[in-house]
């Protein structure tokens, strides 16, 4: 039974060991080992969880009067495996990108935090590990830039307080903290209705902000671009791959614990559950807004940060649909987003490590210099853009099926626009970084180091495997969702549509064969340099850069200039400014330095206490 504990605290212990003996070789080995342990334990538990007689593994420890329950059921196993997969890839990435043991300590601490969040069975453990995770990631961002970490810290604190108040209300009403009893109590309460409608709405709103901040839903996504880009890029693979999934797990928790109660309280509108309709629209707006922002970015890290926010929007949308098909789509997208976004961030880590640049205008023509990284980024591009034989498409297809069959057309329309935007900014990344003339200072760029390549390979394989055989994931998810998606391992069959991934892959290979035949049949090709291009007859020289890397989508910015005037970032900065001025006003007002006013304050306070009869 204490394997759960080993799994949970192995990364934390490894982190401390790595931090303690700060030796180049050993620190990396301990770190990677620390991340491998949870993956091993989870693999061992697969047979018990998903085997013939699934039984839940629980472990309770009492800490200072609070009884912490840890449980490993199908959902938590799924989320924990994704997080540990990304964790292992991050560890391999950090072997070559991070130089200081400070980063190893806090990376592994946030890894323990996420595992704790997924495994905890009650709100105390959930909140403790949630805070551990936020603290560790805050420290990682703090190392690189104060402003971004401050922004991240303030928003996370708001989220944490919201969750704390919501837990407090639930504890006051139900008297228990572990999920089982809360679920039972709220289920019963849905009929009796002892908790008032407005109180349930308040709790829902608080949980919405708490999990929205971590997942990065639109109004609260402001910290994401800054935090994701100011951190060692291979840690961002974990930061955006696994930590944002904690937010999605929170929303799922909302359904499990308070689903019945929320439906009873907030009612049904046009046969959609009102609270899930809100989450669906929150996801849809996140997809579109973050997509448009991602397309117009100039910095490679900002682009992928907004893209992460947009993809998590897909997950929220999938959860918001509410039908079992919607859940399957959302949870499959949790896996595919974690995998292809992790791969993207490792590619960015390789680029930043090798070239030291982050803006698009400094990159160019790296395809020859870093071929393997280019191949990996091509796989990630195909997956994110949702090209059929890849994992990205399978999950997106499920979300489309769920959205349209649940009669949420405008939300499905938002996904159409979102996936086109994903296609646009991914191709912009390909063009700006890999193709075109190479700036002179990038001549001596070498291929990414071996550990980073291993990390990328770890994440590239699931992309293809789950792309061609999506049935594996939907069959596992079907265990606790009442398998809405039929079909065997390579074919998804839903009541309204089918998708045979293997056949699409086979026919694509068949089509490529025909096209390749025509290509080979044609005349011999002669390789020519980049400068031999048609510039309406003008001779082209190496040192005048002819590629459009800056403002690639300037016409789109012009078409959207009405909307681009408003920005959440500036809104929050102004809010912060107002708060600061109010605080200054108060400070001048009270602490004005002369003793008489202090004496007066004392007298007034004593008078109030006397009247109150406390004195």
């Amino acid at each position, binding site marked *: 039974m204490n394997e759960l504990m080993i799994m949970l605290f192995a990364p934390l212990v490894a982190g401390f060991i790595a931090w303690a003996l700060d030796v180049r070789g050993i620190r990396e080995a301990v770190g990677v080992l620390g991340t491998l342990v949870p993956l091993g334990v989870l693999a061992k538990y697969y047979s018990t969880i998903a085997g013939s007689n699934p039984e839940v593994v629980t472990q309770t420890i009492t800490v200072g009067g609070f009884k912490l329950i840890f449980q490993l059921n199908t959902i938590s196993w799924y989320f924990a495996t994704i997080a540990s997969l990304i964790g292992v890839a991050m560890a391999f990435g950090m072997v070559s990108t991070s130089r200081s043991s400070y980063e190893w300590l806090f990376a592994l601490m946030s890894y323990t935090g996420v595992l704790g969040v997924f495994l905890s069975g009650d709100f105390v453990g959930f909140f403790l590990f949630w805070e551990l995770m936020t603290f560790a990631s805050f420290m990682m961002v703090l190392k690189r830039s104060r402003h971004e970490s401050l922004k991240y810290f303030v928003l996370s604190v708001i989220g944490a307080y919201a969750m704390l108040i919501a837990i407090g209300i639930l504890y006051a009403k139900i008297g228990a903290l572990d999920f089982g009893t809360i679920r039972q109590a709220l289920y019963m309460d849905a009929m009796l209705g002892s908790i008032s409608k407005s109180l349930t709405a308040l709790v829902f709103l608080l949980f919405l902000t708490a999990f929205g901040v971590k997942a990065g839903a639109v109004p609260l996504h402001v910290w994401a671009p800054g935090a994701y880009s100011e951190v060692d890029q291979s840690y961002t693979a974990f930061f955006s791959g696994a930590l944002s999934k904690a937010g999605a797990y929170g929303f799922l928790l909302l359904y499990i614990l308070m689903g019945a109660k929320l439906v009873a309280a907030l009612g049904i509108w046009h046969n959609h559950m009102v609270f899930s309709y809100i989450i669906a629209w929150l996801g849809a707006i996140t997809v579109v807004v973050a997509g448009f922002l991602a397309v117009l970015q100039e910095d490679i890290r900002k682009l992928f940060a907004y893209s992460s926010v947009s993809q998590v929007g897909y997950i929220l949308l999938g959860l918001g649909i509410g039908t079992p098909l919607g859940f399957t789509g959302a949870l499959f997208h949790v896996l595919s987003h974690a995998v292809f976004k992790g791969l993207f961030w490792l590619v960015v880590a390789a680029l930043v490590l090798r070239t030291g640049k982050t803006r698009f205008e400094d990159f160019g023509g790296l395809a020859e210099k870093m071929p393997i990284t280019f191949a990996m980024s091509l796989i990630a591009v195909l997956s994110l853009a949702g090209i059929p034989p890849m994992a990205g498409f399978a999950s997106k297809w499920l979300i489309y099926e769920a959205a349209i069959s649940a009669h949420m057309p405008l939300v499905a329309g938002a996904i159409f626009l979102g996936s086109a935007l994903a296609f646009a900014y991914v191709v912009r990344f390909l063009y700006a970084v890999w193709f075109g003339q190479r700036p002179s200072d990038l001549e001596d760029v070498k291929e990414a180091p071996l550990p980073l390549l291993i990390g990328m390979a770890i994440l590239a394989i699931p992309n293809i495997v789950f792309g061609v055989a999506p049935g594996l994931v939907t069959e596992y998810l079907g265990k606790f969702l009442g398998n809405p998606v039929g079909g065997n391992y390579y074919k998804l069959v839903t009541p309204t549509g089918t998708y045979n991934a293997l056949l699409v892959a086979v026919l694509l290979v068949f089509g490529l064969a025909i096209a390749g035949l025509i290509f080979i049949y044609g005349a011999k090709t*002669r390789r020519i340099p980049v400068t*031999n291009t048609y510039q*309406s007859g003008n*001779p082209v020289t190496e040192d005048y850069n002819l590629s459009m890397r800056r403002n690639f989508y300037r016409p789109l910015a012009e078409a959207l200039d009405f909307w681009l005037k408003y920005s959440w970032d500036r809104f929050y900065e102004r809010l912060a400014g107002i708060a600061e001025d109010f605080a200054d006003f108060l400070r001048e007002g009270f602490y004005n330095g002369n003793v008489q006013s202090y004496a007066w304050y004392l007298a007034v306070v004593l008078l109030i206490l006397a009247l109150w009869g406390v004195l």
Partner: protein
Amino acid sequence: MSERKNDEFISYELKEFKLFEPLFRWARKKSLWIVAFCTGCGGIEMPPLATARYDFERFGIMPNPAPRMGDLFLITGYVTPKTLKRIIITYEMMQDPKYVLAHGSCPINGGVYWDSYNVVKQLDKYIPIDVAIAGCMPRAEAVMQGIMDIIRKIENGEADGWKRYRENYEWYRKNQDELFGEGWREKDAKRWLAWL
């Protein structure tokens, strides 16, 4: 453009697909794409060819802005050294069975500008010409007649300007370098950098 080594250009061997050659010859004859790059004063003669009166599209001829896809290169009128540089670069970008149609007497011997310092006197020294049409700017009918000549030449395999260019490439290259000086492509590209 980076310096083109001689052997890299010549190493290409003329592999003739015996089986499909007559089919390709018929296809080349029936679909000529004109590179939309009017070099001289006769460029204004090309649009009327595409209008309802003459309509070269019924012979499968289509103006095509990309030289990589073009076959027929119209040298319409006098050729100044500046334009000749662009002509040479565009001509070398065109894919292989390519034909050149020279309008008027200027490409032949400098014509009216025979003694002008910036008109190329004999275009044939720099790029091979397949058909030359008379007329100080030949009318649309004359241009159409020229195109018919080229089609007839393709039919009986005489239109081998591109083969001539490929076989005695050094001679053409020597003339070009003699006029513009060695490595003129790099020099010219860099010369415009100051302006951009």
